[in-house]
């Protein structure tokens, strides 16, 4: 198969495996492990087979269009370096899978574990193979996410959750910085494609945005590789199952950061900024990590800090930035992956066998697990940089690089000494790992007595250790070619001359190694008595816990401050919201006026009529009084509002809008009835005017502020209204309606023609609104439960009923009926007339004020009158209104009329008109609009009646309810 295809398969394989693994029954460990192992093996083989393509430089690219127009394609790109990383990812992945099969307990849900593990492998490969920076970020974040799931695998223990969350937040934050950095790179280069970016290193380095880019990218890389000051998340990630630590936190995930640095070195490297930022971070991390590692009491803790330290070493090398340093960096990445993974696995075995990882409780395990011990010792020796092992070689190259002077600053001169000391420290903790665990007296009170694990659990360790030894002894023939390919891919033509041999003679680097070894041993023996009893953490920095700082900061930021800010910036109360809304609207409306100034227009005013003024003096009085009384005298306020409404109504008549006047009047009536029905359920309110509460400065202040808002709003509205009214009519669309209402709308009442024809669609929507409201009201009132204090019969009714209660012959309500006999009769007689009136209104609608809506309201009012007169039961005995039916019929009729036009292949609601002459009524316009209007009529009747009746019914329902409640309580008493 072609190389391109191979790449696609390579990236797809793990994800496919992950999906498959998710479906295998969760307790089938062997099936899961087998599947995963197969996937791992297949990928590994694939990678190995791909080697020839890169043996002598060369790049395999495969591009799949994704969002081409934005320069984002799915590009798979593998060069020698990427190949090396893929080898590590797949190879160690395979071993970890094997190891995990025997490490994980039968109780652990296997499906989740293996599927996440495979997904992680895929994501890691995605990073390595990304040929496009956005794509790299994509998989970068993905690895962070999956590692979150893996660290939190045992989410029943709190440490795991904390560690998982911390690692996620730290690395994702870094990832977002990287994202921003990449975006800026794209902005500079004009493309996210890796090859193009790599080609335009100078452009980027010259660009004013170079430093921000560098910092952002570094933030991404350093958080991922747990470099100082972001190192703190890694030790807490050790709550993960050991296979996860072995895979993610030694070989792959943490390697991503340094991988990125090496990858982008040609673009961003070679500047002082680079040297200082990267180099300094690396150096500090290298030293600090080594120092902290010594004082850990948890085996995995030691390994975690040593990982940090070794990655610091690599970062330092990358920071130094010389070609040779890069080679060394890559070489050390390989070596570190091998020995650290094996060490983690060994630690896992010990944990698994003894039940503890506390180094103070462990000792003399040599006699129990000789094989594991041997392997662990070799690996640890490699970590310490003992000759004949791979660690030694890369460390020696590292030393050689530090001796090279670069800028000749103080740091450069100090560098060799510092790194030697740090190396000594690393020797010390390696030694401690070996001696404290495997030698000394036999262990006391271990949770369980250890014995050698199954061969399959040791095999992965053995293989890795073997690699360490082989590379250590015959580097040239084993690691040599791989390193060559990788560094060639990164450095291009100018790969420096370096010799991978075991023995360079007594050189400075060798001397430094020896010093480090001896120094380390000395350090260890000085400290080990103290360490045997000391608690976790280094003497000085014990209480400076990155994690604790992190958590407290998180808590403060994400809870306390956020809460405070939210309550400060927002509100959950209604009045402030309304106040804000109104004020903003006010400002928005008046701002342009203030900005440009507003002078009244020149249109001549219509003749002033004092009567109109008087009308509005009373109207305004009503409005203001209503505003004042609405709190304590609801009924009065309601009546006054009606007064204002009447003023509005008269105004309409006055200013030649008869339709409006009519509708206003009818709606007015119904609304008032509605509110009257509602009043009954509102609580009694005792006037508090003059009490302390009312006079408190707070309240007064609020009142004044609201008053000001009200005044300004009113003033603003009237100013605008006046300004518009005094301006000439714009040459708008209005004349059209007047001209065409009769000729094409077939009606003389233009307003009505507009409603049912020109803008019939509005009316359709409007009646639907009415219908929906009725529906909602109905739905709500079925749930209605009055407040206890207004549930039972109100004072007035009791008064009216008192004579009935007194007299047995009379039943409740008779008195009222007696009182109301006359009006009742009148109202009942009135009904036919009202109905006639409604029909009349409807018929004339098209030519004279009236129309479906007015008619509907009128009829509804008539019905309500009947309810008032005869009471609910009386009415419903006689005529059964089915409002819902009426409403549905109305809507459907209106819609049908509209769709009728389709038959004539005209658009929706196109009207057809005829003017037949009917007896009695005379010539009347019969427009299809009429049927539409009929629909309006039906719906309005239905809706209005439904609302009113539903409200009126409450009295009965609730009294029945309270009655029953009373009965049940009475029954309870007996």
């Amino acid at each position, binding site marked *: 198969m072609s190389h391109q295809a191979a790449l696609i398969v390579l990236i797809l394989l793990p994800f496919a495996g992950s999906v498959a693994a998710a479906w295998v029954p969760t307790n089938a460990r062997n099936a899961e492990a087998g599947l995963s192992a197969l996937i791992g093996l297949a990928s590994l083989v694939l990678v190995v087979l791909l080697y020839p393509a890169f043996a002598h430089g060369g790049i395999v690219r495969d591009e799949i269009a994704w969002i081409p127009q934005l320069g984002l394609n799915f590009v798979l790109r593998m060069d020698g370096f990427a190949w090396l990383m893929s080898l590590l990812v797949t190879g160690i992945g395979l071993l970890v899978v094997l190891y995990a099969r025997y490490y994980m307990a039968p109780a652990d849900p296997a499906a989740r574990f293996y599927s996440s593990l495979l997904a992680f492998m895929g994501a890691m490969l995605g990073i390595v193979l990304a040929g496009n920076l956005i794509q790299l970020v994509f998989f970068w974040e993905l690895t962070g996410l999956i590692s979150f799931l893996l660290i939190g695998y045992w989410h029943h223990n709190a440490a795991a959750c904390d560690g998982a969350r911390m690692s996620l937040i730290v690395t994702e934050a870094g990832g977002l910085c990287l994202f921003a950095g990449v975006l800026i790179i794209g902005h500079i280069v004009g493309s996210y494609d890796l090859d193009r970016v790599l080609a335009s290193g100078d452009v980027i380095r010259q660009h004013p945005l170079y430093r921000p880019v560098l910092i952002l990218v570094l933030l991404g890389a350093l958080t991922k590789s747990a470099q100082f000051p972001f190192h703190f998340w890694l030790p807490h990630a050790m709550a993960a199952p050991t296979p996860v630590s072995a895979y993610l936190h030694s070989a792959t995930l943490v390697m991503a950061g340094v991988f990125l640095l090496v990858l982008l070195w040609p673009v961003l490297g070679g500047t002082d900024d680079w040297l200082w930022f990267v180099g300094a971070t690396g150096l500090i991390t290298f030293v600090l990590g080594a120092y902290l590692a010594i004082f850990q009491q948890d085996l995995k803790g030691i390994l975690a800090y040593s990982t940090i330290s070794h990655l610091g070493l690599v970062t330092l090398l990358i920071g130094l930035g010389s070609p040779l340093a890069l080679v060394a960096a890559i070489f050390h990445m390989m070596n570190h992956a091998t020995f650290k993974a094996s060490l983690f696995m060994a630690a896992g075995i010990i944990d698994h066998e003894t039940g503890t990882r506390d180094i103070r409780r462990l000792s003399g395990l040599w006699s129990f697990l000789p094989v594991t011990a041997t392997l662990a010792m070799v690996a640890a020796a490699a970590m310490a940089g003992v000759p004949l092992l791979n660690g030694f070689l890369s460390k020696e190259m590292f030393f050689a690089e530090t001796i090279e002077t670069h800028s000749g600053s103080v740091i450069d001169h100090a560098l060799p000494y510092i790194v030697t000391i740090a190396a000594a420290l690393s020797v010390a903790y390696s030694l401690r790992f070996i001696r404290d665990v495997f030698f000394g007296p036999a262990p006391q009170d271990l949770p369980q007595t250890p014995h050698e694990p199954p061969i399959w659990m040791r095999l992965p360790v053995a293989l890795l250790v073997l690699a360490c030894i082989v590379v250590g002894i015959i580097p040239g023939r084993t690691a040599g070619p791989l390193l060559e390919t990788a560094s060639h891919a990164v450095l291009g033509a100018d790969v420096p001359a370096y010799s991978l041999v075991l023995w360079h003679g007594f050189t400075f680097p060798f001397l430094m190694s020896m010093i480090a070894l001896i120094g380390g041993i000395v350090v260890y023996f000085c400290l080990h008595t103290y360490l045997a009893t000391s608690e976790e953490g280094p003497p000085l920095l014990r209480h400076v816990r990155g994690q604790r700082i992190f958590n407290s900061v998180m808590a403060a930021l994400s809870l306390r401050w956020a809460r405070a800010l939210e309550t400060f910036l927002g509100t959950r109360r*209604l009045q402030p919201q309304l106040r804000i809304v109104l004020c903003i609207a006010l400002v928005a409306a008046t701002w342009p006026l203030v900005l440009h100034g507003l002078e009244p227009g020149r249109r001549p005013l219509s003749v002033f*009529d004092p009567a109109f003024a008087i009308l509005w003096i009373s109207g305004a009085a009503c409005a203001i009084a209503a505003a004042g009384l609405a709190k304590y005298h609801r009924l009065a306020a309601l009546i006054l509002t009606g007064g204002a409404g009447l003023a509005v109504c008269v105004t309409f008549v006055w200013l030649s809008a008869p339709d409006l006047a009519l509708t206003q009047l009818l709606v007015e009536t119904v609304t008032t009835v509605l*509110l009257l029905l509602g009043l009954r359920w509102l609580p009694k309110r005792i006037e508090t005017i003059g009490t302390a509460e009312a006079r408190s400065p*707070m309240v007064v202040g609020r009142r004044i502020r609201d008053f000001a808002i009200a005044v300004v709003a009113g003033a603003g509205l009237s*100013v605008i209204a006046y300004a518009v009214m005094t301006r000439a009519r714009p040459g708008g669309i209005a004349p059209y309606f007047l001209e065409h209402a009769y000729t094409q709308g077939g009606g003389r009442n233009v307003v009505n023609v507009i409603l049912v024809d020109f803008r019939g669609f509005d009316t359709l929507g*409007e009646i639907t609104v009415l219908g929906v409201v009725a529906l909602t009201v109905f739905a709500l009132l079925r749930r209605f439960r009055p407040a206890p204090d207004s549930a039972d019969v109100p004072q007035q009714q009791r008064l009216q009923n008192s004579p009935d209660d007194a007299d047995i012959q009379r039943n409740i309500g008779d008195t009222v009926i007696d009182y109301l006999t006359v009006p009742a009769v009148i109202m009942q007689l009135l009904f036919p007339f009202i109905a006639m009136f409604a029909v009349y209104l409807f018929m004339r609608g098209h030519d004279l004020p009236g129309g479906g809506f007015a008619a509907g309201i009128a009829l509804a009012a008539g019905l309500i009158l009947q309810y008032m007169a005869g009471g609910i039961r009386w009415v419903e005995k006689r005529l059964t209104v089915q409002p819902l039916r009426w409403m549905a019929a109305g809507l459907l009729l209106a819609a049908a009329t509209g769709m009728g036009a389709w038959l004539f292949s005209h658009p929706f609601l196109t009207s057809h008109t005829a003017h037949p002459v009917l007896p009695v009524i005379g010539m009347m316009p019969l427009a299809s609009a009429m049927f539409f209007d009929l629909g309006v009529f039906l719906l309005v009747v239905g809706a209005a009646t439904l609302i009113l009746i539903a409200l009126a019914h409450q009295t009965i329902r609730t009294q029945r309810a309270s009655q029953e409640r009373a009965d049940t309580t009475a029954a309870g008493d007996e």
Partner: protein
Amino acid sequence: MEIVLSLAIGILAGAGVWLVLRPRTFQVIIGLTLFSYAVNLFIFAMGRLKVDAAPILAAGQAADPAHYTDPLPQALVLTAIVIGFATTALFLVVLLASRGLTGTDHVDGTEPDS
């Protein structure tokens, strides 16, 4: 006339806004009613004022726009009135329900602590 009408709009709106900002549901509903009166008059005013020029065409002769007031705002006001009626009804029921369920007629459904 224009002055009177615009003042009327202003006063109605002011009274409405004042009530809308009050804490009791009944005040709010009355406020909304008054405010909507003001708004209806405002829409109407946007068509400019004309006395005795109802947009009812005399039968027969062709219509001369100059003799009639602007019918469109009237149509808009009609729609606005209807929708206003609907929303008032709905709000009334909601405030009753809220009163029923929370036992208070405060807009926040709880008596203020102060």
